[in-house]
């Protein structure tokens, strides 16, 4: 446990010290602020004009577009945060230190993974500020919002796992970003094949990240969706562990 936290602590500190994190955080905040205000104003306008019979709903009409945008940005931003986690260790030759220390590959990978998740959680918390501020002026049930954010955190955790896997495959941070991006986008495109719902499509439907994410956004935490996200994370963390371990016998 200690080894995991030692590595996680070092990498998180490293991420929080790097300008990249602040550039990314700042840019995200600008984009989210801009879009959130527009969506919120539109919501206010429509519901003022039409009154209660408009059927407008904060969760569906304001938070869902916001969370979708957050998710969209995270697809591109997380690879930039995770790119250095293993690739840089290899490039700087500090990988030798990790591999000759009395720790297992699993501990190395879990440490890096935790650091990545923690850094991303900070970004997600920033994006949570917007709905929370809205809570100060409007009354709405908080639980569906938290369900949606829990889903968002799970999706982001998948991206982190994918990012670390990409980072483990190469010494070059640029390649690592590109690979992580491609993997992330592929995760979303699996759902494209799910139209129709017959045979293979039926299977693809269960693998579609969009479907599971949608459940969380609608406020329902389903066991199968939870299992799906944890499996994706587990798969990529496991693959990364194998890649790191492989350097011992190659």
């Amino acid at each position, binding site marked *: 446990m*200690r080894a995991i936290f030692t590595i996680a602590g070092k990498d998180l500190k490293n991420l929080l010290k790097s300008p990249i994190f602040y550039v990314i955080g700042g840019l995200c905040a600008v984009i989210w602020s801009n879009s959130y205000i527009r969506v919120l104003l539109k919501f206010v306008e429509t519901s003022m004009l039409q009154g209660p019979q408009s059927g407008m709903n904060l969760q569906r009409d304001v938070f869902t577009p916001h969370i979708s945008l957050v998710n969209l940005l995270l697809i591109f931003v997380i690879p930039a945060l995770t790119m250095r986690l293993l690739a840089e260790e290899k490039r*700087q030759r500090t990988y*030798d230190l*990790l591999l*000759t*220390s*009395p720790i297992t590959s699993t501990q190395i990978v879990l440490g890096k993974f935790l650091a990545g998740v923690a850094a991303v959680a900070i970004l997600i918390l920033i994006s949570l500020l917007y709905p929370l501020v809205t809570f100060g002026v409007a009354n709405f049930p908080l639980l569906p919002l938290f369900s949606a954010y829990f889903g968002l955190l799970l999706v982001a955790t998948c991206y982190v796992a994918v990012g670390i896997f990409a980072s483990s495959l190469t010494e070059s941070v640029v390649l690592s970003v590109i690979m992580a991006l491609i993997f992330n986008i592929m995760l979303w495109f699996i759902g494209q094949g799910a139209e129709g719902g017959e045979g293979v499509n039926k299977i693809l439907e269960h693998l579609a990240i969009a479907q599971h994410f949608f459940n969380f956004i609608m406020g329902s935490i389903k066991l199968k969706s939870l299992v799906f996200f944890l499996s994706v994370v587990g798969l990529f963390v496991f693959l990364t562990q194998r890649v790191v371990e492989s350097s011992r016998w*190659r």
Partner: protein
Amino acid sequence: MIEVRDLSKRYGDRAAIQSLNFTVRKGEVVGFLGPNGAGKSTTMKILTGYMAPTSGEVKVAGLDVFEDPIGVKRRIGYLPETPPVYFDMHVKDYLIFVANLKGVDRAKVGQMANTALEKTGLQDVRNRLIGNLSKGFRQRVGLAQALVADPEILILDEPTVGLDPKQMSEIRQLILQLKGQHTIVLSTHILSEVQASCDKVIIINQGKIVAEDSLADLTRRMSGGGHIVTLKLRRPQDLIESGLLQVTGVVAVKRVGVQLEVECQGDQLGVEQTVEKIAAFVVGQGAGLLELKVQALALEDIFIKLTSTDASA
């Protein structure tokens, strides 16, 4: 302390090392000597559990490296060819990080880091970024990293490579100071380094051990009491070279620039007589003797002898 049996490693078709056998006793300082690409780094990486061999067995402090890698790694401090330092970390923070990684007792982490700083003379730069340090200092940070958990065994892969002569001698001094506290295996292709710090030499060439002995024994055995007499003459002639070969005790004569190198065989007394005869002969020929120097065969000559292609002496 370290036992290596029939160790082999292949990279694809190329054999990096072939059935190495050697042992290192507790407290010894062993120099791993060989030309570039001889398999020194590969052997060291296997000793540290960094990579697995194709076949063979390595035991460190009685533990098998492949059955209990964690236990072995706990006992080893390793300095790879490139010091494994994070350029964006401060020296002290880095050592604390490494100490935690190596599982040093939590309460002692700060103290151990300080001791390592002291031993390597890094106190003055403890709060500087590693990336801003000179190469020699980075090397020292690498050494401090290997020392920080106070391991029984230190494995140093070319600890002085790429340093200037002053830094080299500083690192060598440091290794000398560590002697006795740790069992040290160091690799190098610089011979004076071995002469300066090692009890025992293992010479490795093309993946095989060509000699394993204490420094003194190796010198005695390989030179066979041989000496080199270097002559500087005013008027060197071919006639003198062939004439010198007739002198009893002379084995070979070689012309190097304006100097003649004469190799002699025999014990101390015999060599002295030979040298006397050589001097008398040269003076008698009127070649104008300017300089005469007698040297025992040095490690360098032994090394070259052993590592040139058909070296099975």
